[in-house]
């Protein structure tokens, strides 16, 4: 199997290609364009499992209808494409999601109702991820070598978060288990969830091959001590992946978060690079690793806006400049192997040599 941590810009999307033109999709990014390109280009015909970790737009936006364009806001119209639910409406086996406070008003939730009305979806295909006390088996491969487990939300603080307007604190945390190794998909989870997990694990850290740093490497609600605990005691990962867009308005990734993970044994890889790491983004375009190997949100030189100030100087605003871009992992008989990380490491070395200060070094 192949796991793709898709570069969808500011958002999260993972695609697990399970073979025989089937795939599992975990979150879909904010717009369907990239996830649909990945699925169609790999000739995926059936979605075995669509899992939406929580109903924030940057995770569920690619599942249903794209957000309507606000008048005058977008100069370049988004591509004309319905989401994963629309295109695979007759070929989705299971849909798992968290019924947080945003679900009833979300386009994703309403689209599920529409599909049921049209007879294309049966309620038995829906799995509501609710608070529980033990990991639950969400999916298993035919040979039983690979499993996808839900480890959160759990009973306790996260259960109450389900009824509050805090979708992040009830994000579904998933573990892909393969031959004794794991990949953890942490979505936008918060420290409270991880404290619940560690409590039930008798404070044994979650050891994994890779983890997606929660909240796009951004600040999770808590203190610096919480961050240090999370990066050093709660999770022990070889690779820490950050799904972040170049020009996000949230300041992601958080400098302290990246430095804390980089200070452990983890290799930190961001899908896109931000100005925190490199001031001259156009010199790095299309990406730090060179030409992207898979469809990703990383765009061409057309995604550059130049503005001339009154004093004659030009301001360049770059968007969607790749760092590691879409990251690939292969699930083999020997375990989980990541591809192209050496290229990312060499690319970051070049940035350092050029005088930039990437956060992961």
């Amino acid at each position: 199997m192949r796991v793709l941590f898709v570069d969808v810009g500011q958002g999260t999307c993972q695609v697990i290609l399970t073979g025989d033109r089937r795939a599992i999709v975990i979150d879909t990014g904010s717009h369907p364009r990239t996830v649909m390109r990945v699925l169609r280009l790999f000739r995926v015909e059936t979605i075995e499992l669509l899992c939406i970790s929580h109903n924030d737009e940057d995770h569920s936006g690619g599942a249903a209808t794209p957000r309507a364009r606000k008048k005058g806001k977008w100069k370049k119209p988004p591509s004309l494409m319905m989401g994963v639910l629309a295109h695979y409406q007759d070929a989705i086996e299971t849909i798992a999601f968290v019924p947080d406070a945003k679900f009833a008003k979300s386009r994703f939730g309403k689209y599920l109702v529409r599909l049921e009305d049209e007879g294309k979806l049966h309620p038995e295909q829906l799995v509501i991820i609710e608070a529980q006390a033990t990991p639950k088996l969400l999916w298993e491969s035919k040979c039983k070598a690979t499993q996808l487990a839900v480890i959160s939300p759990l009973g306790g603080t996260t259960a109450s978060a389900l009824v509050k307007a805090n979708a992040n604190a009830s994000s579904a945390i998933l573990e892909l288990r393969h031959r004794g190794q794991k990949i953890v998909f942490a979505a936008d989870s918060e420290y409270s969830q991880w404290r619940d997990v560690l409590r039930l694990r008798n404070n044994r850290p979650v050891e994994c091959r890779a983890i997606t740093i929660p909240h796009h490497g951004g600040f999770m609600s808590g203190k610096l001590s919480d961050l240090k605990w999370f990066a050093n005691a709660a999770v022990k990962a070889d690779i820490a992946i950050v799904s972040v867009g170049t020009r996000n308005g949230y300041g992601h990734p958080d400098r302290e978060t990246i430095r804390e993970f980089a200070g452990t044994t983890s290799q930190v890889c961001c899908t896109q690079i931000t100005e925190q790491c490199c001031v001259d983004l156009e010199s790095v375009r299309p990406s730090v690793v060179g030409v992207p190997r898979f469809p990703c949100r990383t765009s061409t030189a057309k995604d550059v806006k130049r503005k001339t100030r009154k004093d004659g100087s030009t301001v360049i605003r770059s968007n969607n400049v790749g760092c590691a871009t879409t990251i690939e992992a292969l699930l083999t008989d020997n375990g989980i192997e990541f591809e192209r990380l050496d290229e990312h490491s060499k690319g970051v070395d070049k940035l350092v040599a050029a005088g930039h200060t990437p956060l992961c070094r």
Partner: protein
Amino acid sequence: MFIVAPPTSAVTHVVANDWHAPSVRNQDWFYCDVTQQFIGDFAVGEILYRPTSRLVGIFEPPTPNTTGRFSVGVLPKLAGRGKTIDEARANWDLNTDAMIQRLLGTQDFEMTDDDKENMQQLSQCFDLSEIRYSMPLQVRNYGKLVSAFPRPWKVRWIDGTTSEVSRHQVPAELVRFSVGQEFEAVIEQDSRTGKLVKIISVFRTARKRISESDVASLLSRATSSKDLPDLDWD
């Protein structure tokens, strides 16, 4: 067509089609061979295959016990069958298309040794990445007809964008729609630019407003993760 004995010096193989080219016809030394054919660009359906190197196909004429066989030396496992070279070549085109499309849909971790060998041989003859990325995407969309004949047809899609389409880009069904009709469409889109290529099919639809109570009703009938099998923490 006729065959002459080739000279002992360098020989130029001439495709039957090239026979009519004056520069070839006026050569002092050449011969015409009806059992060979250069393979240039060829289309199967909407997909155009461009060989990256010059391929020569060889046709073995039929015998009383076998049909004719068309094959290319660098692709030994692909063969086309037919009574004539043209028929066998057409069959070869179809078989090549079928094999390439099957392999493009097969992940490398599920390929057999034969598949890997075929993939390697085909990648030497065709730019498979280009074929993969040049195939247009077929996706669904919801739209509303906002302008119709005699004005240009305009469709406003659900995300607020508007497409102006010509008659050649729309199915006949859309021509019968009146302005304001909402519909679901299957559209073809350029996989690189996202530009609309054409609208393949349309279905009338009346979009119902979904309320929060409808969503709550669906939730009450869905299954729960609490019913899923338990796992250990590690």
